[in-house]
């Protein structure tokens, strides 16, 4: 082989090389409604992005392998309403990432006076992708301004907030299972029907008959605040569990917390598993047993299934791992040193 041939071979080698992955999620039941994926698959992640989704990706190609047999894997969930503001809100990482949510949209905190503080104190600290609706006149988009945070969708309104006025196409009607049933006139073509659970907007006595009558939500959101996180503990997996208990299928609740949510906030780049896109992924366990799920009035629905998040990947990094599936046992970790 001549020197020239050797050089040519060396130059060509990277093109032919197999990707080395950082993280391989193996053997989970993948539910990705947008792409109609529903079955046992592997997901390979590298450089913060999803590199490959397929069957039997070799474990040998990844630095870290997480066996997820028996668990469900979904796109990182999207919670389209909640109070995450710097005064009075809750911490998105502590309350959302741990429930499989990788994108939250603040619905009450951001306006011209508070945007800078929100950016500095909340969004910049969070591993969760933090977006926000604009609460006030002259949204940035109307002034031709782009921000990383403010989305170009009006903040969700309840039927009462709309004061009898009609919501326009593209708007989000929230709190649809409040203390009193939603009038039939509230439903409009092109308007997203959203749960927005919160401390005072989700009642089984409204939701159970409504769902039986066919009034399903388009999107499932928590509208979490400091109050609703204690009683009734309405984080994302808790709210999804309620809809499972009321008869929706797992596919239906995942669809409403991923692709539908992305569509409602006009971020079609989110809410699905795409090769080449940032790796935001949730791994969920469907536990069986006896579980008490509380509504906003603190009445209980006793359920025999509960959804729990066991692992969250955000931007390709494991951000939550309740079972330690991605971690090494300390006795196998070699000598501990000051340097990580």
């Amino acid at each position, binding site marked *: 082989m001549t020197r020239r041939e050797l050089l040519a071979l060396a130059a060509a080698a990277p093109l032919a090389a197999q990707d080395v992955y950082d993280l391989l999620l193996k053997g989970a039941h993948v539910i990705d409604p947008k792409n109609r994926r529903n079955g046992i698959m592997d997901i390979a992640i590298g450089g913060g992005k999803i590199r490959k989704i397929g069957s039997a990706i070799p474990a040998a190609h990844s630095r870290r392998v997480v066996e997820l047999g028996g668990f469900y894997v979904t796109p990182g969930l999207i919670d389209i309403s909640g109070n995450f503001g710097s005064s009075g809100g*809750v*911490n998105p*990482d*502590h*309350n959302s*990432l*741990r429930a499989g949510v990788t994108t939250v949209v603040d619905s009450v905190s951001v306006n011209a006076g508070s945007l800078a503080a929100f950016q500095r104190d909340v969004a910049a*600290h969070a591993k969760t992708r933090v977006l926000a609706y604009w609460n006030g006149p002259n949204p940035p988009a109307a002034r031709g301004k782009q921000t990383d945070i403010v989305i170009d969708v009006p903040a969700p309104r309840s039927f009462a907030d709309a004061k009898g006025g009609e919501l326009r196409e593209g708007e989000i009607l929230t709190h649809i299972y409040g*203390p009193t049933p939603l009038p039939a006139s509230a439903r409009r073509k092109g308007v997203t029907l959203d749960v927005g659970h919160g401390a005072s907007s989700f*009642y*089984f*006595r409204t939701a*159970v008959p409504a769902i039986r009558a066919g009034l399903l939500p388009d999107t499932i959101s928590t509208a979490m605040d*400091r109050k609703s*996180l*204690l*009683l*009734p*503990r309405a984080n994302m997996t808790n709210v999804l569990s309620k809809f499972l208990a009321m008869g929706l299928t797992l596919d239906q609740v995942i669809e409403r917390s991923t692709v539908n949510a992305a569509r409602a906030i006009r971020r079609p780049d989110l809410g699905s598993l795409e090769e080449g896109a940032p790796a935001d992924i949730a791994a969920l366990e469907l536990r069986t047993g006896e*579980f*008490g*799920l*509380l*509504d*906003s*009035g*603190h*009445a*209980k*629905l*006793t359920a025999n299934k509960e959804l729990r998040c066991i692992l969250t990947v955000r931007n390709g990094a*494991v*951000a*939550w*791992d*309740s*079972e*330690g*599936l991605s*971690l*090494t*046992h*300390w006795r196998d*970790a070699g000598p*501990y040193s*000051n340097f*990580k």
Partner: protein
Amino acid sequence: MRLALLLACAAAAFAQPRYDIVIQRGHVMDPANKIDGVMDVAIANGKVARVAASIPAAEARKVIDAQGLYVTPGLIDLHAHVYGYSGSILPDDSALPAGTTTIVDAGGAGWRTFDDMLERVIRPSRTRVYSLLNIVGHGMVGQTFEDNVEDMDPAKTAAKIAERRASIVGIKVAHFGGYGWVALDRAIEAGNLSKTPVMVDDKIFTISGRTSKEKLLTKLRPGDLHTHVFNDRQLEVVDRFTGKLQPYVQQARERGVLFDLGHGGGSFLWPVASQALKQGFFPDTISTDLHSSSIMMAESDMPNCISKMLNLGMPLYEAILRSTVNPAKAIHHFPEHGTLSEGSVADVAVFALRKGVFAYKDAWSHKALGNQKLECVLTIRNGEEVFDRDGRGFPEWTKAGKYEVIP
């Protein structure tokens, strides 16, 4: 006439249950009163009204069945971060679902900033929040501040403690990167002036001019606390090479120096903790050092810290003692807090002890596997149910009528 009055009283008593909440059939662990068995607990007007073998359901507005669960005083987390530090957490959404009803902020505020903490964190929180005041006047706001000896004023620190005695329980000295003992000496001087304990969170380098032995045997006073007990960069509890418990640790304990867990994001290491517990060394107090990083991967809330101790061989009763009575004593609030004594403020936690295989992670994201896990299922603060994971204290919606909020 007298009979009629008696009947009227009895009728009134019947119509008006005398207790707000009765927790029935739980295994009560109340180390202060040496209770360790199945008992009922009654709560009225925000106070523990009675702990007895059997309290009739008819005497309570609300009955909570705790069969198969443990009922303990609300836990006291002696070391957490809820103010000042950029990684601070919100007390209520982190503490109350963990069964923690009292949280001690370890040095977030100094004498210059404490009043702001009082206004913004202590008063609005449902969790009871105390402060260990930082010897640094500006509090825990970064290394340059924490190294600044000029801002460590014992007199002003002691004066602020005297002014805010209801909320400040001691002094914190932390992260001093300079040479020698000046930061600790000033904290102890403030401790002497205010008659409060000092909690030490140290850095030890070869150039620091400080050693664990000198610190524990000559500097700290009886009742002072060393936190981060299983971080061998702060305190070499076990010899780094032989794994043997250091003799001076036992000597310090005999002098009355207290050792606090302070798990945190960098201070719980399996090799150190497992060696120490194997040799019978239990921390005096179990605490979380909860902040934004330790809450995620290490999950260092109180039930998890306790579970780690259980899986390293500490009996549950000992762990509850170290999460209730001992921290209350350390901050000079015993028997006011940390007990289920009749007449005390009703701060109560209910736990399930699950069996299975569970992963527990240390500060460097290495795991150990254990076969038991303590989980908080219900928390009562000041006589009010504030967290109820499984809705034990509430009726089925089909039987609830037209409810807004069910009390």
